[in-house]
């Protein structure tokens, strides 16, 4: 199987706290026993895979987004920059040009439309990507600097890093995605071949699962559902999946021992029977069906 291009599995959820990190780390560890596996933590606002996967740090790369830097000496105060910025990130005030870097989307319009070349684009650090080796698993984590507001550029940078380095040689990629359904999730799942949605059988879980499914349909992504703590609520999540013909790949029962191991930052695979069975099910689904 899977010879040339990697199989990219994104783990997403809509609702937070349903078990994305739990599934991503345990599944990555399990699959790494059979294939060279790459685990990528794309929940850049609150990355937590490192709590469960301990590796040796291979490299630590600062990540940047490009922002314009005003060169006062060259500026002719023509105002083109200010009028070309859709985000009000470049504003001319009299003879002064202010750049609000947190509002900038790095479109380069102001810089390239400036007739005096007075706004060259400069890198601005937004976070860091750490590459770690944990036995047969290579683990990449991107962390947004506190105070930076845009997760999307860092998620894009991380995907680019994977594409441009030898990292795409790994036959299995597992992407741990941010919660929600808006732009960071779209950016994170974009290159994936298959999306595993983790949910819980509660009204909140169902509501957010529906939002996530709508997003993935729009992105034309094949998907499957894992119901975590499957015995705590009601049957409506499963009924919804059946109605939508989305496969329910596995159901993981609530287990206090799992919750305790998780809280201590420990993997549960091989230690708690019910969860181990579930991870095995998910791994074989991936191998056989995707």
């Amino acid at each position, binding site marked *: 199987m899977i010879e040339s291009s990697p199989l990219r599995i994104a783990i997403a959820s*809509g*609702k*937070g*706290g*349903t078990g994305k*990190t739990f599934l991503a780390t345990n599944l990555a560890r399990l699959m790494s026993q059979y294939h060279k596996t790459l685990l990528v933590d794309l929940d850049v*606002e*609150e990355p*937590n895979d490192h*709590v469960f996967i301990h590796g040796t740090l291979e490299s630590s790369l600062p990540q940047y987004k490009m922002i314009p830097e005003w060169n006062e000496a060259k500026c002719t105060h023509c105002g083109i920059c200010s009028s*070309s910025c*859709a*985000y009000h990130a470049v504003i001319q005030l009299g003879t002064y040009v202010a750049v609000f870097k947190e509002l900038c*989307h*790095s*479109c*380069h*319009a102001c810089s*390239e*439309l400036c007739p005096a070349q007075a706004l060259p684009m400069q890198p601005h650090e937004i976070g860091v990507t750490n590459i770690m080796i944990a036995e047969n698993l290579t683990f990449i984590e991107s962390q*947004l600097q*506190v*105070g*930076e*507001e*845009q*997760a999307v550029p860092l998620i894009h940078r991380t995907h680019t890093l994977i594409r441009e380095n030898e990292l795409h040689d790994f036959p299995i990629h597992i992407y741990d995605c*941010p*919660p*929600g*359904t*808006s*732009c*960071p*999730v*779209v950016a994170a799942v974009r290159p994936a071949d298959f999306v595993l949605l983790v949910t819980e059988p*509660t*009204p*909140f879980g169902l*509501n*957010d699962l529906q*939002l996530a499914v*709508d*997003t993935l349909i*729009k*992105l034309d992504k094949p998907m499957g559902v894992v119901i975590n703590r499957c015995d*705590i*609520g*009601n049957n409506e999540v499963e009924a919804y999946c059946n109605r939508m013909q989305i496969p329910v790949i596995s159901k993981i029962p609530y287990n206090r021992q799992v*919750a*305790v191991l*998780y*809280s*201590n*930052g420990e993997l549960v695979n091989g230690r708690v029977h019910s969860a181990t069975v579930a991870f095995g099910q998910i791994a074989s689904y991936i191998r056989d069906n995707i």
Partner: protein
Amino acid sequence: MNEIVVLSGKGGTGKTSITASLAVLAGREAIIADCDVDAANMHLLLQPDFGRRIDFFSGELAVINPDLCTACGKCAAICRFNAISILDNQYHISPLDCEGCGYCARICHPVAISMRQRKSGSLFISKIRTGSSMVHARLDIGAENSGKLVARVKNEAKSIAASENKRYILVDGSPGIGCPVVSSLAGANYVILVTEPSQSGLNDLRRVFAVISKFRIKAGCIINKSDLNKGIASGIRVFLKEMGIDHLADIPYDNSFTRSMIEGRTIAEIQSPLKDTIEVVWTRVQGLLNSNAEI
């Protein structure tokens, strides 16, 4: 008027269930704002009537008129978001990738590209059973700018609170530390953090508190599922003390959270051993806000 924002960093710690319970306890005194616009859930507990709906427009979207396009390819070359691609000799713009910067429209000489307003969600102003109002929203699929929609939700809540002379605005924030969270913090008087005693919970609590400190807003913390891991729970208490965060309550693991969701009610309204604890939290927060006002 006092604005209370409930945050967690990590998702799934019980933030929304607790906010909705506080909303019931506050009754007519508080306007409720659900600022978790990415994955809004509070309506499932408070059952707003979706009384008034307002379309929310944010930013723009580039659109190509194929009759005017000469397929010169300049637009695709300058687009930093890889939103423009060619298929069968015809350029297309992917609405999911376009960030609305307008650069392509500006440089397109045959003027084949125009910018259109982009609808990115809906805002609702509703009545709820507490006798008060709730402002909530739904972001369209894959839409951007949730920070702007958050700001809009808050501003609507503020203007209702001002005109109706309410004492509180109670805001349910989103997980994470990015733009929606920063947007929900603007103007807040007090932040209630809901965490859980896990390595991840503590990690995320530290990161979200670092954001809150930048705004110099006073904060208190509820440790939910406090009996799950006693060691980490006491680690969190040490962190709270060091940072000067009020320790509001410990809530042991309890199925009231799930039960109340399924009943479509809040914990404050069902038979639950947690009721008293949540009432104590609300009394404390009110006390803290009033004593702050005197200083």
